[in-house]
């Protein structure tokens, strides 16, 4: 593995200079959902990491990546994960979902403009896909972009947009053809979020937090140079984004819940009864296999939808198991493991909706993995 040893040494040196604590394999510290560790700190760290050439191992060299193969890159990320890093969840959409789309479908100018910024945390990105009447049925979207000379005028509403309130750029899907054209009349754009006419309104979530937003477009003018892909070919762009999203959700880089086994083990004090032993062993197995499955998605062509459905099943299992182990302590109030798991039980169901609902994922597996006849949806 060319360069692995050198780069691993660089990581350790960088970590030492940063004073990053080693991840204690027996400690359980991360929070699920994330995004509450302080944006400024995360951004500053990410810039130093990027400038040290340690942020993006498998990225193209011209955009600041290292150009390494996937296996070496994964191994280096594992080295980095030996340390406790500032909260990385702000960057998942930017780096793992929007940037790959720009790399695949953007013009050289768009790539030069955004990709480095997204990886260096000089900009944050969001998706602007779902609408109140277009959730699973994304092809029903109504937000319009109308051509006006060398620009487009956008009107409409988007919803469930993670981090839109913090973002500099959004990947927008807008209708440029007739609504009856469905997925054929949609175009993708890279919209600067600070343009006049854009209003972002956070949505209060089930657990009281607000990472999602409604985004309103009122005669927003965007240049044609911000168009991503061909006119009316936004569906291709969107599908590529959604595949990246599913892969990111099931990947090791963004394990929704870190250390499930250790977290659950800590709930069973004293002599562990047989039923609880069974539950804990099952949790351990699921944790190991989630890693293998994520790797198979990343490198062996396993469908990301399979990985995401397996993940969702794991999250349901962890939540149920925590409730069983905690008993009444599930409601034991702030600062207790009960509070952590209460929040988990409330917030983890979002994983069953974001990036395509369970139902959508099953449809993808049925049609694309198993080759079953297309369900009559349209």
């Amino acid at each position, binding site marked *: 593995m060319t360069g692995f040893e050198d780069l691993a040494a660089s990581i350790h040196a960088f970590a030492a200079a940063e004073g990053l604590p080693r991840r204690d394999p027996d400690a359980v510290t991360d929070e699920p959902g994330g995004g509450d560790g302080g944006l400024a700190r995360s951004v500053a760290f990410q810039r130093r990491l990027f400038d040290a050439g340690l942020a993006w191992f498998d990225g193209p060299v011209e955009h600041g990546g290292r150009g390494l193969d996937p296996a070496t890159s994964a191994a280096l990320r594992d080295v980095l994960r030996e340390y406790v890093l500032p909260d990385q969840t702000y960057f998942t959409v930017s780096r793992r979902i929007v940037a790959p789309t720009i790399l695949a479908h953007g013009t050289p100018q768009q790539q030069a403009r955004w990709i480095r910024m997204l990886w260096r945390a000089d900009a944050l990105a969001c998706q602007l896909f*779902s609408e109140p*009447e*277009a*959730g*699973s*049925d994304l092809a*029903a979207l109504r937000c319009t972009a109308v051509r006006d000379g060398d620009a487009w005028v956008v009107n409409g509403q988007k*919803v*469930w947009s993670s981090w839109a309130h913090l973002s500099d750029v959004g990947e927008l899907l807008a209708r440029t053809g007739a609504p009856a054209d469905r997925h054929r009349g949609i175009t993708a754009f890279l919209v600067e979020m600070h343009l006049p006419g854009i209003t972002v309104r956070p*949505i*209060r*979530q*089930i657990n*009281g937090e607000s990472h*999602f937003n409604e985004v309103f477009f009122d005669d927003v003018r965007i240049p044609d140079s911000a168009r991503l892909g061909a006119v009316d070919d936004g569906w291709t762009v969107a599908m590529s984004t959604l595949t990246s999203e599913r892969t990111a959700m099931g990947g090791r880089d963004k394990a929704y819940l870190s250390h499930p086994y250790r977290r659950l083990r800590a709930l069973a004090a004293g002599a562990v009864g047989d*039923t609880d032993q069974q539950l804990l062993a099952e949790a351990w197995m699921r944790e190991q296999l989630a890693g293998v499955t994520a790797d198979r998605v990343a490198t062996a062509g396993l469908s990301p939808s399979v990985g995401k459905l397996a993940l969702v099943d794991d999250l*349901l299992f962890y939540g*149920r198991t925590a*409730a*069983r182990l*905690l*008993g*009444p*302590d*599930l*409601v*034991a*109030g*702030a600062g207790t493991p*009960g*509070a952590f798991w*209460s929040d988990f*039980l*409330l917030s983890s*169901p*979002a994983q*069953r*909706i974001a990036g395509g*609902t*369970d*139902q959508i994922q*099953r*449809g993808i597996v049925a049609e694309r993995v198993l080759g079953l006849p297309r369900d009559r*949806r*349209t």
Partner: protein
Amino acid sequence: MTAPPGVASEPASELATELASELASALRDFLGAHAEPVVPAGDGGQVWSRLCGELGLAGLLVPESHGGLGFGPAELVAVAAELGRAVVGGPFVPGAVAAASALSTLDGDCAGELLARIAGGRRSPVFVHMPLAAARRVTAESTVDGSVTLTGSVGPVLAAPPPAPLLVAADLGGTPVLVLVEGGAELTELPSLDLSRPAWRVVFDGTPARVLAGGDRAAGAVRRAEVATWIALGAECVGVAGHALELTVEHAKTRRQFGRPIGAFQAVQHKLADLTVTLEVARSAADYVVRCGGDERSAHTLAVKASEAAVTITTEAVQLHGGIGFTWEYPAHVLLRRAHAAAALAGTPDQHRRALFALLDER
């Protein structure tokens, strides 16, 4: 094997079941007018207070001789299901159910007066107890004046804020006692999962208390309160589950995607059908409690089946609602929160199955 203690010893008569269904229907009308739509935050027990004032529900299980309604398991199940459905707050379970059930097993002026207080709704005691807890956590010590002092803590439990008197199960030198604490306990509200009904931690530190019963009579009273608590929380879960399924079916009929209601998709239809089966099995468990006169085995059965059904159905309800179910304003999470909290406070299904097996294997 002796007959297990229960809410009542006789199977429900047909008349009782009819009464229960009328009561449930009246209650649903009342709650429809005063408690719908479900609110995300607690109502401070206001709805419950009105139910006590206007329908006398605090005296549900208090004998008529003490000013109550003198009802049995059929009515308890019916009322609790409606209260769960509307996610009503207030000390229904620890007071009207648990305290009344414990006190109903005791003779004596003091027990009688406490029962009358429950029915009357003033200075009503609540029973604070960890169901199925491994060890008794409160110890009592005799004092020179014949009363006792308590040390230890219980929680999270359902309770009511001071000045509500507390009924506590404690250990007095190896003997179980049921005691009354009229003041001096330290109660901490645990702001947590179920926003409509907080849990509490109760700490006793040399707190003076009065012994109401000891030995087998205390154990019997405590067991009766426990069984009634399981039944009430289980029936609440049936109500929660039913409400969550109704909301979801309604959403499936109105929300359109791909040019038709999502409820026209077979995947959604079959999921909702499976949840219906889950709900109906829980309802059968509620019926089973009534048939068995609220005995202990049926109470375990209801606690397991109803809490599992409520957690499953409210969890799937959030998922089937898509994004909207994940917002603070929509009531799906209020039901999810109550389901989890009621299930946690009733004792886990594992604990109930374990206790049930011990009963089954007794003979």
